[in-house]
């Protein structure tokens, strides 16, 4: 009986509603009162935090001291890649040397495992900290060619807006 009465009183006084609004109100007041830096939620994309140094993001291609490609086109990265994301083209140069004429990473296929970096005998490819990989445009933008990889490798950007890709 008393339980029925209790529920009746709670219903007509809108107790549950007020209880909920109280929580909302307190959080609202708190958010006005507390300084912004202490807040847990980061306001991405206005506010960005760099990824950790060991993060495996966008691939970069490196050059040696004379500014030539470190890559010798041995193809071990392509062989090591579990997702078959790397395509490499080489040709014979004028001095009968091996020339890397094309290097492509299919970003749709890549699983960012970093085996290419690990297997590379010349340390020519790295996975940088750049994590912002999404694009609005067509599929072509996801086939990363040599120029893009070289630009990322040279600049090692932390965020997308540091580099024009």
């Amino acid at each position, binding site marked *: 009986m008393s339980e029925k009465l209790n529920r009746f009183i709670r219903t007509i006084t809108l107790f549950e509603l007020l209880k909920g609004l109280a929580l909302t109100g307190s959080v609202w007041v708190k958010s006005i009162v507390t300084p912004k830096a202490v807040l847990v939620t980061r306001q991405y994309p206005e506010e960005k935090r760099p990824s950790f140094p060991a993060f495996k993001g966008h691939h970069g291609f490196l050059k040696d001291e004379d500014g030539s490609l470190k890559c*010798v*086109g*041995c*193809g071990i990265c*392509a*062989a090591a890649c579990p997702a078959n994301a790397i395509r490499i083209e*080489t*040709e*014979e*140069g004028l001095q*009968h*040397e*091996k*020339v890397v004429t094309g290097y492509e990473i299919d970003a749709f296929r890549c699983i960012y495992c970093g085996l290419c970096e690990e297997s590379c*005998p*010349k340390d020519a490819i790295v996975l940088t900290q750049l994590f912002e990989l999404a694009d609005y445009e067509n599929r072509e933008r996801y086939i990363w060619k040599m120029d893009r990889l070289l630009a990322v490798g040279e600049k090692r950007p932390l965020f997308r807006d540091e580099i024009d890709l």
Partner: protein
Amino acid sequence: MSGNNLISVTVNDKVYQVPAGLSIIQAADRIGVCIPRFCYLEKLSPLGGCRMCLITVQGIPKLQTACTTPAKDGMVVVTESEEIDKARKATLELQLAQHPLDCFHCDKATRCDLQDLTYLFGDIQHRYDFPRKDLPTLYDNPLIERNLGRCVHCERCVRVCEEIQGADAISATRRGRPTEMREVPGGGECQHCGHCVDVCPVGANLDRLFSHRGRPFQMEEGLSLCPYCGCGCTLSLNTREGRIMRVWPRGDEGVNHGSLCARGRFGWGFVNHPERLARPRIKKNGQLVEVDWEEALLFTATRLEKIIREHGPQSVGGLGSARATDEANYLFQRFMRCVIGNNNIDSSARLGYTAGLTGRLGVAGDVREATLDDVRRAARLLVIGADPVETNPILGLAMKAAIRKGATVVVADPRTTLTSRWASQHFRIRPGSEVPLILALARLLLNERELSAFKDADLLARIALRSEELASLAGMLEGDAAEQTVVLAGRGVTQAPYGASAVAALLRIVAKRGASYLLTVDRNNERGSCEAGVLPDRLPGLAPLSDRERFEKVWGQKVPEQPGLSAYEMLQAARDGKQKAFYIMGENPVDDFPDTRYVEEALSSAEFLVVQDLFMTPTAVMADVILPSASFAEKAGQFTNLEGRVQPYTAVIPPVGQARPDARILVELSRKMGKGFPHKNIVEVREEMNNLVPMKESQRQLACNGLSHAVPGPEVQWGPVEDSDFPYLLLTTASLYRNGAESNLAVGLQKGQERAALRLHPADAQGLGVSDGDSVMVTSKTGEIQVSVRLDDEIAPDTLQLAEGFSDANPKTLFGHEIDPVTRTPMARYVQVKMRKL
């Protein structure tokens, strides 16, 4: 050394039974015990130079090389022990001490014996710190690079070049560590067979077409058949992303037993050539414009139907292909017979195999046909009017293998060829006298009444042969070793007047003596196209037209009764205005048929010309419709080689652009013309064909009933007629580097030999005032060509030799278009010409 005797050998504490007469390494390979090696290769003579195959034999204190030690009964052999390991590691250590270790960009990496053995032995010390000697890489050879630094001095390349190819191009120079395996001046000329690349255990000999274009582990391998000559060699196509990257043989598979020639190995460049036709084209207002398949097929069907309605079915002629598969040729003849409704079907086999076949059909009963293996085992080889080393290089290799086993080879040929240089005796008969030679042999060996009209002295005068020389030639076919005697005949016989009668006479001699014969075949499927029914007077399986009811039952359509026209008769009919349309599948008559101008005029006088081809050939340029077809690598089917062996193969890569296999084009066109073929795939075509033409093992059961041939009389003129305006006699030869239009577009063959060369005797050159490399204009009654000169003192004075197949100087332009009355084959072996210096 009898093969059936077994001996017991104990290897690593186990007793095995092995055949007697093997070396220890051969025995180990057969029982599955692995002994590492660099220099040993089953097909080569053992060298014992690399010291990797060291083993212990009980009772012998020192380590022995397994490749040079014969296995004996009761022998106890140990192949793995600490002592052996130490010795092998020491050998590897020395090899690695001077190896450049440039595996990162070596094209052999991951297929390298040195790499594999280094991984196998693992902990190899590096105690020798002497500076690595920087040996150069040689790029003298346009197709093969020789990286001397990587060489392990196994001498496999030297031995394979000497023992199998017989070219003697590579030799080991200098001694000790700086030994170099290289081509030296004064050595043999490289024939670009590429065998040294295959056998090299490391990356010292490499294919330059493949150089740095990919890594071995990125390649996919697919088996295919060579599209050039009639040998039908098995190729392994190394492809990547649907493109051919390189070609090599697969182990010892196929009729070629692991050997290839320059064409097979380096002639693949046309497949992914940028000039390949990728879309159908139709002539609109005099211009060829690209259209889609639907439009092209509809256009073709409508035009063909209109011509048949207006001028009757006899007004359409068809050329099947001596290059296309058996299935495509089978469908083509069915298309011409059932859909178009006539028997006007021929192919470029008319220039070679068809004449020999007509000769074969003129002999009742069995005549033993040799296989390539029979040639390898032969004790005596008689070669008449053929040059197997250049037309069919693998047959040439079989001949060389026989020679190394002691076979006698006698060549009767007016030309100096690579084959004649291998002969124990070369009879330089008068040009065009192959047929009189065979008739003279027949008179001597057969005693037939038909030939009584001839006089021996008259025949010998025509051949330019003394009677004792003829007797020694006939001696080749007499005596005991008849079973091991093989007669090889080529286009010198089949393209001569009454060539079929000569072939028939030759085969009668062969049959009587119990010998065997083989006809050289220039194109990969000349034989298959004939057996598939691409002949104006024969149905599939060489069945006569009177047998057509059997075919009508299966095809459900009428087969015309009247025999059709052969190639040159069709061309003549077109010139007379009777032939209105041509359907040409994979042939290029403008380039391949003698008398270029005649052929061009005939084709251009036709109202409607359909060409199905890979490239914009001179024939395709004249066409009203061009249907792009798939190359050999892009379609499945079967080819029939010169022995009659039917070999199926599958597609390895997808077709370029919108190109389609020939068989598919024909099926779709037949549907557009309202008499559609029911086949859904190539296997159904093959089954239908095999039901009509039964197979036994890998050979077709052919209807070889006797034909009777007109026997020539003594009044026939064989050989050239003297003409003081045209003082020189030009003889056509074959080239290792060309065979048809495709070979001119293959970059590897262009590198092998870039331009045609007219070979002439230095005395003639002096009279003309030309030297090596000068250009001359060669003129005959029908045409003229410009070509550069190469002096050769081995060829006969007053004769010139020019290879067929080079697009820059086509000897076919110089010939006339007379055809033989029996075989209807045009004559294109010799022509009277004059020359002037340019």
